[in-house]
């Protein structure tokens, strides 16, 4: 099986505090994997390591069979906040990663990315004029425009209201259908995890490592009211509680 993203025995500590303790992960091309787990279990750290923002770790991370030792054009990252450059309009924000190329090709890429998140008519708006959901869609377009093979999302819809969040999840799926990147999505929202992912990876308490992997069967497009999803959500919830309770007993 070809692997897009491979993490083996990853360990990371901040000073004396171990954050990730021997994490293994194997993600296929165009697969969508959601990562859930208690707060402080190193979910965000995992994404930062894969993105190459922090290269001080033990173990190995491979993206498309290349070892990660710094930021890499094959990996994109969408943060919790949109983090748009306030002095650039929407179009220039999206074009940021294209390194100021301004030819037909670059303009085409930007146009396509904006279309994928349905913001074409806001190309010339400034970030301060956007709502939170729109700003996060711009951030998604900015990450997609360079066509990364792996797109990492760090609780991207966390700050949004439930309704906007659901719309953005569908925007994400639409964009995924067009670009087909491998998605690794960190989330707190179990509904989001089971609605979007092919597999849900459960991390244990700090130092984080994989304690369970739950495959999500239904084909896309999924129905949010599908009882299978509700059942999976219950299973996830139980797994999370079991993990915590076992810790309490052993502690």
């Amino acid at each position: 099986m070809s692997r897009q993203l491979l993490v083996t025995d990853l360990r990371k500590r901040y000073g004396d505090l171990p954050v990730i303790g021997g994490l293994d992960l194997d993600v296929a091309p165009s697969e969508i994997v959601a990562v859930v787990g208690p707060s402080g279990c190193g979910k965000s750290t995992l994404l930062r390591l894969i993105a190459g923002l922090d290269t001080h770790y033990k173990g190995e991370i491979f993206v498309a069979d290349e070892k990660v030792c710094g930021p890499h054009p094959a990996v994109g990252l969408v943060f919790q906040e949109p983090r748009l450059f306030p002095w650039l309009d929407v179009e220039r924000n999206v074009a940021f990663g294209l390194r100021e190329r301004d030819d037909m090709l670059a303009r085409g890429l930007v146009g396509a990315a904006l279309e994928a998140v349905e913001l074409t008519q806001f190309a010339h708006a400034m970030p301060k004029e956007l709502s939170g959901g729109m700003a996060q869609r711009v951030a998604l377009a900015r990450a997609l425009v360079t066509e990364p093979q792996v797109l990492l999302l760090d609780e991207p819809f966390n700050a949004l209201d439930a309704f906007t969040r659901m719309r953005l999840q569908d925007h994400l799926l639409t964009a995924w259908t067009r670009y087909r990147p491998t998605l690794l999505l960190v989330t707190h929202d179990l509904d989001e995890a089971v609605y979007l992912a092919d597999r849900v990876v459960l991390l244990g308490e700090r130092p984080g490592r994989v304690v369970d992997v739950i495959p999500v069967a239904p084909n896309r497009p999924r129905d949010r009211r599908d009882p299978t999803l509700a059942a999976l959500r219950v299973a996830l919830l139980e797994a999370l509680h079991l993990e915590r309770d076992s810790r309490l007993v052993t502690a």
Partner: protein
Amino acid sequence: MVIVAAWWGSTAFGVFAAYQLPPPPVVLDAAIGLWRRGLLQQDIIATVVRVAAGFTIGSLLAMTLATVVGLSRRTEEAFEPTLQALRTVPTLAWAPLLLLWMGIDEAPKVTLVAIGAFFPVYVNLVAGIKNVDRKLVEVARVFDLRASEIARRVVVPASLPNLLTGLRLGATQAWLFVVVAEFFGASQGLGFRLTDSLQSTRVDLMLVALVCLAVLGKLTDSVIRVIEGRSLKWRDTLGEGRPG
């Protein structure tokens, strides 16, 4: 307008004697007189040239040093303590030393103006660079941009508001310092006109110089404000609404 009215009123009602504060028409006459003899133009040009030269040199130097200090820890350690120590010297205290070093030519005057303009620009820009949102820099890092590209495409635009504030304060300082510089051994300039008219007790001429300085200072400030307004439209500050 209010000031001119109060000025006119106070002289008309005898709050001040005419030799202390002559009424506006007298001052206007004095200005026209100076202009006819070609002295006013000469003073204004001399002062403006000194301010322009000093401000340009001082602010360019400040921008260069601030960028170097703001972006690298090592240069910060090398320059910052010295500059902070120099900054605590009241800048006007440099005047006698500069006279001694450079004589009474243009050089010490321009230098003094440059010193005056330097520190506000330097301090504000360093603060601006240090305050650039780490989160935005991180976005650029994910795209694997080189440090120089991050500096140009993220740090420079993000610290532009501080730079412009610094330039505005620096310009004010430049006008202040040029007057002081011209107190010592100048033969023309608006500052010279002030001391010269003090000796001849020509209050009307002093007021001409003061009004000119006020107008020129305000003009500089307005120009920088216009640039500020144009280049900082993106800022999400007071009075901007958000849709939906």
